[in-house]
């Protein structure tokens, strides 16, 4: 297949686009109406899926486009969730109004944390973020105001009836998941995405062309951190209780990493595919306890060894498709 054929296949015709648009709208519409025809249990699972997807997408943006591998991704989850709970409880204000504030708090935290973290690079950066996440966990564990080891419940949610509460959290999660995807696509197709991809391909060439590497990475760091913080806040509106050990748990990072690795690092489709795979595996096998984790870990290892591009690379190896239009591969002759 030559490069011209690739380009033709990658750009659907106008009619094709219209069909895709209608299908997407129908799916989104169905998802938006879900609270009226699904059970609470289904909605809660969907909240988990959308929020974990947003976290994995953010992790993948950092690792796949910024070269910023983060092992301590849970710090954003924790900061977002704790900011929401503390703000809403102390001020006694409706948590939905507080969601943007919690997101802003995470953005501020990301900005400050870049100060020490951006001193490190590569694998050192990766483990350094884990150290920072641990520090936050220990701090909240020892902070009476934040409820110490027992954490705190989201009090303001008690005044809503069950249906409103569930539907409200569900819609927040839907907006978070879809919004994260839209923001990621806009970012990658815009100036920042171009700068990041040029840095990823050759840092020296990017710098020589006038790309401010540190500024591009910082912008990505703050955007991805905010997305993760919002997702964390919504995820904990679902469970209604934050505790230091659960909220700052490495498990959040592990889920994001598994999803990105399984789906494909450095693509937008990867986290979508990865999230579907991850939740299929979890819903089918999590009953097996440690064996489930052994299997999941082995699967990630096998993926890294045999298909480092993840499941999405197996798809693109066979079919030349680019649904998000963000790939900028050089045409091969």
């Amino acid at each position, binding site marked *: 297949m030559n490069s011209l054929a690739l380009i033709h296949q990658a750009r659907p015709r106008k009619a094709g686009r219209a069909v895709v648009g209608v299908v997407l709208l129908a799916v989104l519409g169905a998802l938006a109406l879900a609270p009226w025809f699904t059970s609470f249990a289904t909605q809660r699972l969907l909240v988990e899926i959308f929020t974990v997807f947003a976290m994995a997408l953010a992790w993948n943006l950092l690792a796949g486009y910024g070269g910023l591998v983060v092992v301590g991704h849970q710090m954003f989850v924790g900061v977002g969730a704790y900011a929401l709970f503390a703000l809403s409880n102390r001020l006694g204000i409706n948590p939905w109004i507080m969601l943007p504030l919690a997101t802003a708090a995470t953005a501020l935290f990301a900005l400050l944390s870049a*100060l020490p973290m951006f001193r490190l690079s590569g*694998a050192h950066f990766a483990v*350094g973020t884990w150290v920072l996440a641990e*520090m936050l966990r*220990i701090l909240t564990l*020892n902070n009476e105001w934040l409820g110490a080891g027992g954490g705190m419940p989201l009090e303001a949610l008690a005044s809503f009836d069950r249906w409103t509460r569930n539907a409200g959290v569900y819609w927040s999660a839907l907006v978070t998941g879809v919004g994260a995807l839209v923001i990621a696509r806009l970012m990658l197709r815009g100036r920042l995405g171009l700068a990041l991809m040029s840095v990823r391909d050759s840092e020296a060439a990017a710098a020589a062309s006038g790309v401010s590497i540190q500024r591009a990475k910082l912008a990505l760091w703050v955007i991805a951190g905010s997305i993760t913080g919002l997702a964390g806040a919504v995820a904990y509106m679902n469970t209604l209780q934050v505790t230091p050990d659960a909220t700052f748990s490495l498990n959040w990072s592990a889920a994001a990493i598994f999803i990105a690795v399984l789906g494909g*690092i450095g693509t937008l489709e990867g986290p979508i595919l990865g999230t579907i795979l991850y939740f299929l595996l979890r819903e089918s096998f999590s009953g097996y306890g440690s064996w489930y*984790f052994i299997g999941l870990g082995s699967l*990630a*290892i096998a993926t890294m060894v045999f298909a480092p591009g993840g499941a999405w690379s197996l798809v693109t190896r066979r079919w030349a498709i680019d649904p998000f239009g963000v790939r900028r591969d050089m045409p091969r002759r």
Partner: protein
Amino acid sequence: MQALIETIAGGLMLGALYALFGLGLSLSLGVMKMINIAHGDLIVLGAYLCSTVMQLLGIGPFVSLLAVIPMMFVIGYGLQRVLLNRVVGRGALSPLLLTFGLSIVLQNILQEVYTADTRSLQAGEFALQGFDLGGVSIGLLPLVSTVISVAIFAGTSWLIGHSHLGRQARAVADDPGTARLVGVNDRNFFALVTGFVLAVIALASVMYGIRTPFSPTAGPERLLYSFEAVVLGGLGNVWGTFVGGLIIGVAQLLGAKVSSGLGPFFGHLVFLVALLARPQGLFGKGSR
């Protein structure tokens, strides 16, 4: 004052153990340019292997090392040969994510085999003995583990500087391509290095297991302390890692004096502050 000196002495001896944790990490980082996220879990694995050997043969923890050190060497050699060699040299991301998966697998295998209960290695009377040095009481076990740590560091430093293996290590660390050209079989060499790293881990894990009760999930914290020792000391400097370990140990015990729950927090804090002041580590060379 007395108490302060005692805390600092305790911190130095704890730090010598952290340094020994970090030595392996420093070597694999220097030679293979990879961080093994499962490093801490391998320390815990070593401690569990010791406890199994001790139970089976009815021997003490130090004697059990005669069996555990060779076992860990073989595990390390095999791990590098079968798995890690496939991703070494592919950049920072691949080895990191692969060993992250390995860490999850190891933790859950330990959980499955040994349950989630905590264990410790019984060293009998020896673990409780101590003596008085000018009013400062010093435990025999921490002192012995410090002496062993210093000895291992001196030995490793000598190996790197003077032996044929050490020359290979320095050559591969500087330029793997050229080292291969002049006849270094880096696949096999990497496996030997990881074998050595795991043998050192075996030693460290016995001291750790006698000192602290451990559980299958104790690994990640060990990894973080090792990592801090290595980065604080600076890359490409074995004794730097030793000093880095000492600093983390003292910071943790002094921090625990301030507030009992905040020991590790102060260790992390000192690490971050030192990093802001000297990103290349205390003894690191100017640029990486």
